[in-house]
């Protein structure tokens, strides 16, 4: 303790304390989060809906309105469906930490039960896509090769051939697909979160979606013999890296060659 006491006015002490606090918070959060069990929400009781309404009033209504009717800060959620709520909240996109062009993926702050209650209440305000059943996104009978073709035609234009994501306009972007669960990928396709278009079950069938999910899961397994993938965004980042880092190295070498020795 005497060491700590003597070092407490060190210029880096503040940073060290902050770092330790962040690590402890993060680890305990992860421990709590991983302890939650999957809860089936087959029967939605009125108490669950009522619990969802309370949670919504606390966490969501400041932007989406007390009755999900929407405000100037957030869109109406009437008719978005339970699948949209489950996707946005389970992937941590909602509630947003701050207003911005796009909600980034982050750690979810709700438990499975709370998300189910929120989804049940929002679904009660108007009909919309329901949360998919595990059998919907089960990939045991999926065709990997067909999934690749369907991914390249329907998904790769924004999420890139590698699933690494890519830029859209005005700071918006298609996210990297590495962290999304099979359920979340399915929900994203049927609900069209943020600027992503909808790929409804009627125009891109359940089988198509299972094939695509199977392909995305396969993409993650791919080995990376070249190391640093620069986000797998393709030639733009690779070119930028070479034109900056590579040229900086060449210029440094040229300067060293040109400087007279002492």
């Amino acid at each position: 303790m005497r060491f700590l006491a003597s070092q407490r006015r060190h210029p880096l002490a503040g940073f060290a304390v902050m770092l330790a606090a962040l690590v402890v918070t993060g680890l305990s959060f992860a421990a709590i989060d991983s302890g939650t069990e999957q809860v089936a929400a087959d029967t939605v009781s009125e108490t669950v809906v009522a619990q969802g309404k309370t949670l919504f009033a606390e966490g969501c209504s400041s932007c989406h309105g007390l009755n999900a009717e929407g405000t100037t800060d957030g869109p109406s959620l009437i008719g978005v469906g339970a699948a949209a709520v489950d996707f946005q909240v389970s992937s941590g996109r909602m509630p947003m930490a701050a207003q911005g062009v796009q909600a980034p993926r982050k750690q979810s702050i709700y438990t499975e039960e709370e998300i189910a209650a929120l989804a049940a209440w929002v679904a009660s305000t108007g009909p919309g896509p329901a949360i998919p059943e595990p059998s919907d996104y089960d990939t045991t009978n999926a065709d990997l090769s067909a999934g690749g073709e369907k991914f390249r035609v329907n998904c790769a234009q924004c999420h890139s051939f590698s699933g690494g994501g890519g830029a859209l306009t005005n700071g918006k972007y298609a996210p990297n697909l590495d962290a999304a669960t099979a359920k979340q990928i399915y929900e994203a396709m049927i609900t069209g979160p943020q600027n992503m278009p909808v790929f409804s079950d009627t125009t891109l069938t359940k089988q198509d979606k299972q094939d695509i999910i199977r392909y995305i899961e396969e993409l993650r397994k791919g080995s990376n013999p070249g190391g640093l993938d620069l986000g797998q965004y393709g030639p733009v980042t690779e070119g930028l890296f070479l034109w900056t880092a590579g040229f900086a190295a060449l210029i440094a070498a040229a300067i060293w060659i040109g400087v007279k020795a002492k």
Partner: protein
Amino acid sequence: MSDLVHHESSTTRPTPAPIPHALRRADIDPKAARRAERQVAIMFALSALFTVLFVIAFVAIDPSVEIGLPVIGTTSALNVSMGLTFGLAIFLIGTGAIHWAKKLMPDVEVVEERHEFASSAEDVAAASETFKVGAAESGVMSRPLIRRTLLGAMALFPIPLIVTLRDLGPDPATSKFHTMWRSGMRLHTDVSNQPIRAADIPVGNLINAIPDGLEEVEHEEGNLNERAKSVVVVVRIDPADIRSQQGGTAEEPWDYNGILAFSKVCTHVGCPISLYEQRTHHLLCPCHQSTFDLADGGKVVFGPAARPMPQLAITVDSEGYLVAQGDFTVPIGPSFWELS
């Protein structure tokens, strides 16, 4: 003579003051010279060592072994070892040579005088005399038959180069003005090749579509060309958000209840594009960032594209499936000379 010319030019442009020569540490101190010598030798020796290590790595490391490195991440151990050893082996030869030149080789400044560019008068006279004698002896002026046939042969010789340009390909004729879309032809989903029912498309939906019958066009008949020309994106926009379309009347609109079909080929240089933002209704091209507003007749709102994205007029058939009203009314894809 060259000194004389140099002296004359120096009246207009003053000769810069000579740079004072500074002695290096290795020039004065034999210890420093020996140290530099050792450094150079160490670099060359290390280079040799890395070459040996390259061979050892190539033979010994299994290609399937992966290692985790900071920043770079998980990567192939063999790739990293071969790259590092080979790169360092050649890099150290280079740095050794430069270090040697900078520290130990003579670095006295020397001035190299530039010589006169023109040949001497005697050389010019001799060359012109040789040419005149040669021309007279060859008889090129006194034998006009030979002179004229030679000129004729040389004038015709480049013609084969121009004639072979015909092999660049068949004349596209009017094929760039048409696609395989016909009135009543159903829109099918790409890859799964299923007809699309209008009632199945929710607002915000995106479908990559092809014409019914495209799959039956054989490769030899130009399937890839037909596909490249006829691919469309189908989107459904709330009709209240649609500000304009490229054609149609109130009775016979080009959309069907807000379902719009547009070419998928960028009008700039022809990249296939379907990066669709469902809230802004913008279609983006990943190649050069051209942006089209599908809610406003496919107008270009950003980027180098010069023409709006061509719209395909659609409606539904008696069974409720999406069909084309006909072919595109303007050529799809990049602009070309004959397009007016």
